[in-house]
């Protein structure tokens, strides 16, 4: 279910220090989300496309990952232009498209698609293991990093447990429907997942104690030194700064 296929590549982005990528992803995403001007947003869109290209990800996998947001965008285009008040732009029978409505939709579309492309290019191209390490070096609290890595580690285990439980139910003639029996069955399956998760947590905690864990998290640090790191960092910062300033001046 969870695949880290995008992390397998070997592009320029893949070779950058994960910390640099995390910082850039944060900076660009927030700057982008706070922009309003179409000109600036257009430039961000191009910027995001360039990042995706630099990560050498095929159009197919990227589009697949954008599917949820594209569906969302489609939905707002169907609703917002007609419900938003303001200067009418176009009449379609009884419906009126308004200019502010269309502008709002356009803005949301560019922002959401660009932010997700930045996310895909910079963050989805590393494994969660690497991401955790990067967050650790960026001084995110140890407990939170540990929580992230441990949660990630056991998702696959629990997912498999769920698949097997569901399969067992189906083999015994369970056909889900809209009825109490089905909801109760799903509740039992979910309940069983939590019970097993809790029992497993006890065992894992014991296993950690046996390996000398005493409350401090240590990890293998492996910073990737790469000539490109400072270059990329500077480049992205400069570009973002320019776009932020343009945005501010535009007003």
């Amino acid at each position, binding site marked *: 279910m969870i695949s880290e296929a995008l992390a397998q590549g070997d592009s320029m982005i893949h070779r950058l220090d994960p910390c640099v990528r995390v910082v850039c992803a944060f900076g660009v995403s927030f700057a982008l989300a706070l922009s309003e001007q179409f000109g600036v947003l257009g430039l961000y869109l191009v910027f995001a496309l360039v990042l995706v290209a630099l990560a050498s990800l095929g159009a197919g996998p990227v589009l697949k990952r954008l599917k949820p947001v594209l569906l969302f965008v489609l939905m707002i285009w169907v609703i917002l232009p007609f419900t938003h008040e303001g200067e009418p732009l176009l009449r379609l029978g009884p419906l009126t498209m308004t200019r502010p409505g269309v502008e709002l939709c356009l803005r949301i579309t560019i922002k959401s698609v660009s932010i997700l492309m930045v996310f895909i290019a910079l963050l989805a191209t590393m494994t969660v293991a690497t991401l955790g390490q990067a967050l650790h070096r960026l001084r995110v609290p140890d407990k939170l990093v540990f929580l992230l890595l441990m949660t990630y580690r056991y998702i696959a285990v629990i997912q498999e447990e769920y698949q097997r439980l569901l399969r067992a139910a189906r083999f*015994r003639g369970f056909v889900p429907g809209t009825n109490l029996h089905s909801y109760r069955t799903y509740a039992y399956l979910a309940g069983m997942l939590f*019970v097993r998760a809790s029992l497993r947590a006890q065992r894992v905690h014991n296993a950690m104690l046996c390996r000398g864990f005493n409350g401090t998290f240590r990890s293998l640090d492996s910073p990737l030194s790469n000539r490109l790191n400072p270059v990329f960092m500077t480049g992205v910062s400069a570009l973002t700064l320019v776009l932020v300033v343009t945005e501010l001046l535009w007003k």
Partner: protein
Amino acid sequence: MTNPIIKLENISFAYPGATEKILDSLSLEVYHGDRIGMMAPNGSGKTTLFHTIMGLCRPDSGTIEIFGSPVSTEQEFQAVRSRIGLMFQDADDQLFCPTVVDDVAFGPLNLGLSADEARDRAREVLATLGIADLENAITHRLSGGQKRLVALASVLAMEPSVLLLDEPTAGLDNGVKEKLVKILNHLDISYVVISHEFNFLTAITDRVFSMESGKILSDDEVRIHQHEHMHKLGNHPHKHV
């Protein structure tokens, strides 16, 4: 000669995304009264084979006939699934209701029995297996051996025509194993059993198959395989068994 209960013909299957075929033009026939053992290395596709019979893995090519009629769509599989009792490799995966009787009655309820009928059926099966006293026990607190027996009960409560048992003895001690041997030898039902234990298999089956490169191997090859294995262990100092 009667028709086979389960008939696989030239089944090929690869997991989506994987290139390697786990099942490769495999054919298998199970007749009424057959008691077949299956012993093959980890990852050779035994569990996949069972899942294919149950319609959980859809073959890329080949045909499956169950009780004489071809099955290929989800509807068709749903109709026959409850007549094949699959017992999972790990009993924990199979027991998800709070108490033993709830769990054993789950299948019959899905078959459309009333709550009372389902409970009666569950009690009956538990009694047959000699674990009537577990009726109100909490499933996840049972011991490993008890879980296995309850899992078997919950499969038998569906009154299947054939059993598929996936490593019913893994991690069980000899006491529970012997109990299983007795139970299986007394049940009047056809079955296919996967196990890594030759002694157990020979005690409960008439023939032992193996699997290699996605195909079923017949009895003889298995026998040769076993001799070889025992020879290897013979190099180490070990007690006479």
